[in-house]
C-alpha cells in the first residue's frame, strides 16, 4: 500500500494507517503507560461488576464483626459498622469513576463552548467570559468546591456540580488560546471567503483542530478530579458514609489508625494508584497525539 504513493513521487502526508501505527508505537512504548492502562482496566471492571465482585454488602455491615482485623473471612478487615473494607473499596471505584467522568465531561463541554465563543468573537464577549474565568481561577480549586458545597450540601450530585464549576475555567482558558491560534490559519480565511457562517466555522473547522490537546487535558484532569473528590469526601463535605467513597473511608479509618491502620491505608493507596494511572495515560496520550504539547499541558 505504501509503495503506491511513493512511486508517484509525491512526498505527501503519510497514509492513515501509519498515523495509527505511529500513535500506538509511541503510546504503548512506555512501561508506565501500560501499567496505567492495567490499573484503569481493573478499576473499570470493578466499577461495572461491583455487585458480583464484592463479597459483602458495602453499605450494611455485621455489627458483631465491627473493626475486624484482616482474615480469610474479611480480606482487608471491616470498619466500625462491620462493613467489609474490600467491598467498600470495590464500590468506591464506582463512585470515583462516576464523579470523575461526569464532572470532567460536563466541565469540558461548558468550558470548551465558553472558550470557543470568547476566542472566536473577541471584543466585549471575550472580555466578559474570560474575566469571569479569571475570577473563578482565583480560588484554589478545593476552596471553590468547598464554597459551592457549603451552598448545595453534600452528596454525589453536588460534588459533581462543585468540581465542574471549579475546573471549568481551565478548559475555557486552554480552548480560548487554541481558538485564537487556529482562527489565524489560512483555511479558516478561505472558509470565511466562501461564505461559511460563524457557527459552521466554529463547529466544523475550529473545534476539530483543537481536539487533540483537549483530549489530553480531559485525561489529565480525570486524575485531578478524583483527587479533589477524595479531598472533599475526606473533609466530610463530599460523599459521606455509608456511601462508599475512598476519601471518606480514609477519614473514617483515621480514628482507628493505631488498631486498624489498613482502614485508611487501603483506600488511600487506591486513590493514589488510580490518579497515577490517569496521569501516566494522559502523558502517554499527549506524547502520542501531539509531541509539541509537551510543556504546554
Amino acid at each position, binding site marked *: 500500500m505504501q509503495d503506491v504513493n511513493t512511486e508517484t513521487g509525491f512526498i505527501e502526508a503519510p497514509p492513515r494507517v501509519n498515523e495509527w501505527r505511529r500513535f500506538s508505537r509511541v503510546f504503548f512504548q512506555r512501561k*508506565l503507560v501500560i501499567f496505567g492502562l492495567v490499573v484503569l482496566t481493573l478499576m473499570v471492571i470493578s466499577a461495572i461488576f461491583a455487585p458480583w465482585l464484592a463479597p459483602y454488602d458495602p453499605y450494611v455491615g455485621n455489627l458483631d464483626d465491627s473493626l475486624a482485623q484482616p482474615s480469610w473471612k474479611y480480606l482487608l478487615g471491616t470498619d466500625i459498622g462491620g462493613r467489609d473494607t474490600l467491598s467498600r473499596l470495590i464500590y468506591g471505584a464506582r463512585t470515583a469513576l462516576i464523579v470523575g467522568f461526569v464532572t470532567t465531561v460536563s466541565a469540558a463541554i461548558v468550558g470548551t463552548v465558553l472558550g470557543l465563543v470568547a476566542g472566536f468573537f473577541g471584543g466585549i464577549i471575550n472580555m466578559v467570559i474570560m*474575566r*469571569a474565568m*479569571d*475570577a*473563578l481561577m*482565583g*480560588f*484554589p*480549586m*478545593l*476552596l*471553590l468546591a*468547598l*464554597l*459551592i*458545597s*457549603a*451552598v448545595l*450540601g453534600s452528596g454525589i450530585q453536588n460534588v459533581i456540580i462543585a468540581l465542574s464549576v471549579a475546573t471549568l475555567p481551565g478548559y475555557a482558558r486552554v480552548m480560548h488560546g487554541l481558538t485564537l491560534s487556529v482562527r489565524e490559519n489560512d483555511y479558516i480565511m478561505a472558509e470565511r471567503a466562501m461564505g461559511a457562517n460563524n457557527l459552521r466555522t466554529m463547529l466544523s473547522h475550529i473545534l476539530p483542530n483543537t481536539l487533540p490537546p483537549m483530549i489530553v487535558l480531559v485525561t489529565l484532569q480525570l*486524575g485531578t478530579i478524583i*483527587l479533589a473528590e*477524595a*479531598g472533599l469526601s*475526606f*473533609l*466530610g*463535605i463530599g460523599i459521606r458514609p455509608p456511601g462508599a467513597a475512598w*476519601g471518606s473511608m*480514609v*477519614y473514617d479509618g*483515621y480514628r482507628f*489508625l*493505631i488498631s486498624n*491502620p489498613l482502614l*485508611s*491505608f487501603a483506600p*488511600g493507596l487506591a*486513590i*493514589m494508584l488510580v*490518579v*497515577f494511572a490517569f*496521569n*501516566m495515560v494522559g502523558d502517554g496520550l499527549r506524547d502520542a497525539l501531539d509531541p509539541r504539547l*509537551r*510543556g*504546554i499541558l
Partner: protein
Amino acid sequence: MITYIIRRLFIGIIVLIIVTLIVFFAMRLLPGDPLTIFIGQQGASGTMSEAQKEALRHEYGLDKPIMMQYFSWFGGLFTGDLGTSIYYHEDVGKLLGKRFPITLHLGLLSFVIANLVGILLGLFAGIRRGTWIDATSTTLANIGITIPQFWLGILLIYSLGLKLHLLPIYGYTSPFDDLWMSTKQLIMPVACLAVTERSVIIVHALKNSLIPVITLMGLGLGMVFGGAVLVETVFAIPGIGRLLVNSVFAQDYVVVQSGTLVIAFIVIISNLLVDISYGWLDPRIRYG
C-alpha cells in the same frame, strides 16, 4: 511598561470585583435565609415572635434589597467590617486575623522549602537528562503529585509519630512562644504541602521549562492555600483552612464568605504581581 502595568491592574480590579460578586451571591443562594440558620443555632426557633424576627432581620440588614446588601457588604470590606460570626460570636475580621498568621506560617514555610528544593532538583534532573537521576526524580515527582496530601499526612503520623515517636502528631504552637516545639509540630505538615508543590515544579520543569519558574510560584501559592485546608484538618492545626471547614458545617456563612474572599484576593493579587514582574523580565509580553 507603565501602560502595561496600568492595563494589568485594571483587569485585576475587574477580576477582584467579579470574585466578590461570586462569593456574595453564592452564599445568598443558601437554602433558607441566614436568619433562620442563626435562630436555629440559638435554639430559639420556637420561642421567637414574628416581630422579634423582623427586628433581627432589620438589625442584620437582611430586609434591604439584595443589591443594597451587596453594596453595604462591599463597603464593609474596605473598612475591615466583615460582619459577626454567628457560630463563634466574634467579629469575623478579628477571627480571621487570629487564624490567618497560622496558615501563613505553615504556607510560607512550605512554599520556600518547596521552591528551593524544587528548583535545585529540577535543575539537576535537567542537566543529567536521560540518566537514571532524571528517571528517578521524574517518577518520584509523579508520585508526589498523585499522592493525596491528607493520606501522606496519615502515613507520616503513623510512621514518624505513632510508631517511632519522633514528632508530635498534631497541634500548633506559635514560634514566638516556643520555637523548638513550633518547628517540631510543623515538620510533617510542611513536608506534606511541600512534597506536592515541589513535585509540580519538577514535572513542569522537565516538560521543557516552557512555563517559567515564577508562574509556577504563583500557581504554587494557590496550591498551598488549597492544600492547607486538608493538611490543617489532618494535623488539627487551627488555621484558616480548618476554620473554613468548621464554618461550612456550622453554616456560618459570614465566615465562609470572608475567608474564601481573603484567600482568593491573595491568590489573585500575587498572580497579578507575577504577571507584572513577568512583563518586566520579558519585554515581549508587554507588547503581546
